[in-house]
């Protein structure tokens, strides 16, 4: 086989494994005050934003990387990373899609992102992120009509500084843990959503992330604010090109729901997980936190995690408003040498708050999967309740599945129920399916999809189909 063929062979393993040649503007390597000033300067940020970053950086110097997690990883040299890179064509911001770099458009096409006509047909407004800078935002008109702000973070800082100033860092303060603080110091871009009072967002908002340049840590920052009586459903999906070096992704996502508002946040994460031997792959260390600030508010997280070499995230809900509701639905699949340590935190502060956690973990190959969750009912959270269910499925005896729930009940009016099971696909089930004409792989796919059904149901239509396929693809080759 010649080299070319070999390359093609390699690409086949990973559906989205390609990179686009676009010259990048890079900040100098390393992390210091100058780099932060460089980022802030190139994005033409106001002084208060720079102060925010520098404050985070000061704090960061005092922090140590956490190391209590289950999946260990080689030490990251933070001075050896680029903290800013942008596609060159971004120098002068394009006014319309036609002005975009054709190569960029092609990349999106390969990924199947409905940027132009497809977007309209699917009814999705896309704020596509290529590396670190938002490239295009569609459906602006429709959204503006409702008074909805859906733009990149950098644009929001310029155009809506009051909102950003008021809410940025209120859920994930600059003084949070190491990776969140790192993000606060060096974040490049992300999405900003504001739904005004009484507005129900007419479409699903969606961002596709894409990591492109090698050695670029991606530091996205997303802020979603749902004002009183509003509703929004937000989709996030990720794919990344094939790379040998490990890439760090430390995003921060903040959600704020005011009185009677509801936010639904769905993620399908399919970043490069490394090859069969565990080489390469993305480190996905994301901080996601939602604050149910107002009465009767609701935040719902749904995630399908199939990619990344290491996934380490706990989308959380702080239920501060009375009668607020937090939900967490998760499917995490690890295969080969992937590792995941994921779960949620439900912190009940208000009265009559409710939360529900459904977590499904599937591990195959040599992978390791941990559910780690916290349910904390405060002494003032009268009449609150939580229900947690976490099930794990093991395929083969080289992998591991772990459950580490922390349960704290400080209120006698409140109820917490927790259940967890670990099992494998039974021979009987497999036999039954095969008897009816399915091959073993199809049978496993069917059973696994059934196992995950409760979570898949929570996804919006467009995502559900993709996610179901993804579940099948992720487990390919693990049966035998």
């Amino acid at each position, binding site marked *: 086989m010649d080299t070319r063929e070999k390359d093609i062979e390699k690409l086949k393993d990973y559906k989205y494994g390609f990179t686009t040649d676009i010259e990048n503007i890079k900040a100098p390597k390393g992390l210091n005050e100058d780099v932060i000033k460089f980022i802030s300067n190139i994005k033409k940020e106001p002084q208060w934003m720079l102060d925010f970053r520098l404050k985070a950086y000061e704090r960061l110097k005092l922090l140590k990387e956490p190391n*209590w997690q289950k999946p260990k990883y080689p030490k990251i040299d933070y001075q050896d990373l680029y903290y800013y890179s942008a596609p060159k064509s971004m120098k002068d911001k394009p006014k319309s899609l036609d002005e975009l770099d054709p190569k960029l458009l092609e990349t999106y096409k390969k990924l199947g992102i409905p940027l132009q006509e497809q977007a309209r047909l699917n009814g999705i407004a896309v704020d596509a992120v290529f590396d670190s800078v938002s490239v295009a935002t569609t459906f602006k008109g429709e959204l503006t009509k409702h008074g909805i702000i859906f733009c990149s973070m950098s644009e929001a800082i310029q155009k809506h500084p009051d909102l950003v100033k008021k809410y940025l860092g209120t859920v994930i303060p600059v003084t949070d843990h190491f990776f969140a603080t790192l993000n606060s110091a060096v974040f490049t871009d992300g999405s900003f959503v504001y739904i005004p009072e009484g507005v129900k967002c007419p479409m699903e908002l969606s961002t596709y992330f894409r990591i492109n340049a090698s050695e670029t840590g991606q530091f996205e920052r997303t802020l979603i604010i749902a004002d009183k009586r509003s509703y929004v459903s937000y989709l996030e999906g990720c794919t990344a090109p094939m790379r040998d070096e490990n890439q760090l992704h430390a995003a921060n996502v903040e959600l704020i729901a005011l009185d009677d508002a509801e936010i639904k946040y769905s993620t399908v994460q399919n970043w490069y997980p490394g090859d069969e031997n565990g080489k390469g792959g993305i480190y996905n260390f994301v901080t996601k936190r939602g604050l149910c600030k107002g009465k009767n508010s609701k935040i719902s997280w749904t995630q399908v995690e199939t990619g990344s070499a290491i996934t380490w995230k706990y989308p959380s809900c702080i239920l501060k408003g009375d009668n607020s509701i937090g939900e967490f639905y998760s499917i995490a699949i690890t295969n080969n040498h992937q590792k995941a340590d994921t779960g949620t935190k439900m912190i009940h502060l208000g009265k009559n708050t409710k939360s529900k956690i459904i977590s499904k973990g599937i591990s195959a190959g040599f992978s390791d999967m941990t559910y780690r969750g916290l349910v904390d009912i405060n*002494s003032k959270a009268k009449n609150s*309740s939580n229900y947690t269910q976490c099930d*794990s499925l*093991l*395929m*083969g*005896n*080289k*992998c*591991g*599945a*772990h*459950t*580490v*729930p*922390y*349960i*704290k*009940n*400080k*209120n*006698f*009016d*409140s*109820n*917490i*129920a*927790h*259940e*967890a*099971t*670990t*099992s*494998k696909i039974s021979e009987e089930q497999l036999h039954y399916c095969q008897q009816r004409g399915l091959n073993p792989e199809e049978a496993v796919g069917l059973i696994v999809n059934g196992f995950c059904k409760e979570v898949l149901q929570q996804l919006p239509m467009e995502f559900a189909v993709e996610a179901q396929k993804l579940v099948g693809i992720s487990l390919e080759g693990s049966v035998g």
Partner: protein
Amino acid sequence: MSEQLQSDFSKIVKTSKFSNEEIQLKKNFLNNFIKKGFPNRKQEDWKFLDISQIIKKSISDLSFFNDYSQSNKIDPSIFVNDLEHNKIIFINGRIEKIDFNFEDQNKIEIIDETEKDISFDYENSLIDLNSAFTDKVFKILIKKNYSLKKPLIIYHSTNDKLKSTNINLRLDFELGENSCLKLIDYFANNTAKNFINIFYNFNLEKDSILKNYKIDKLRNDNLKYSFNNIEQGNNSISETFILSAGSDYFKNEINCNLNGEYSSAFINGIFSLKENQQHEIRTTINHLVENTKSYQLIKSVLGKNSKSAYQGRIFVNSKAQKTDGYQLSKAILLDETSEFNAKPELEIYADDVKCSHGSASGSLDENSIFYLMSRGLNYQQSKDLLINGFLMDVVEKITDVEIKNLITNIIGLKQ
């Protein structure tokens, strides 16, 4: 604290008859403990109840010296009456009496083995403390094919000479093939504010059965820590029951290694706590080979200002196929100020296993109370009846009928 430890240690060396080797070994343990200090909440296993803080708060003048050269008078009023039994009596941490009157003396051997090192890996600094300051270490050996006719009760008591002192005691048990031991730990502590650190080592050979019942019922303001290390051979069974109700602070830790096929471990526990009590049970069950089984049931009833914690860990090795592991913890919170914490943990590396855990906590069910009151009971009676049923569930798991009745009476439950 380090200076006090050193000086108390040298006092112990003076008053005891340890050999030079023993002293050297103990010194190593002492140095380990000085290095580590009391465990605190930064350590994962001590997250919920921080013993270093609790000791600081309730015993500010803790002394580590305890004169083992003086014998103490045995107060017969502490004995359990309605059950014929063998006795080991600890007073102030000193063994005053070992009495196996009901047994065949040839089948039981008591060995002095003070100089022994610890045979397993541990991080727990309280074991270092125990090993440094413990007096005599006896090993009780039950010979092959012998089942004790009567249960053995170990009395843990202190008299009023003792105050603000750390007591360390240790016993090793070796159960030979096809033997059986029923062991009751009975806590009858009268004096105040001592920190009692107990370490038991069990080795269960093939087909042997161990039943250990820990009864801490009488209200006292001592702090206690108990660590059981259980090694199990083929087809052996261990049953542990913990009644955790008397002391101000009590942490029971059980580490169980299922080394032999078809071995099984059962742990049942009751927390019944009131004013300012803080209790914890932490279990680690290591399923290391095929076809092993474990079952855990822990129930809490929590009154005013009390706090209970349960940390249960089931570990399944990749070789340990066909493991069956189960864990259930339930809590009833009776007051606004009560608190329940749980961390039921599963760590599984084998695929053909059946492991599950459940945890539930909340207040008494209003509907059930309504039902009982509509049938003529008053509010308090209905509440008592529900709690009675809730706890009876755990007591029912005790396999020995005589001991079950004894414990039912001690707790004051109705059948």
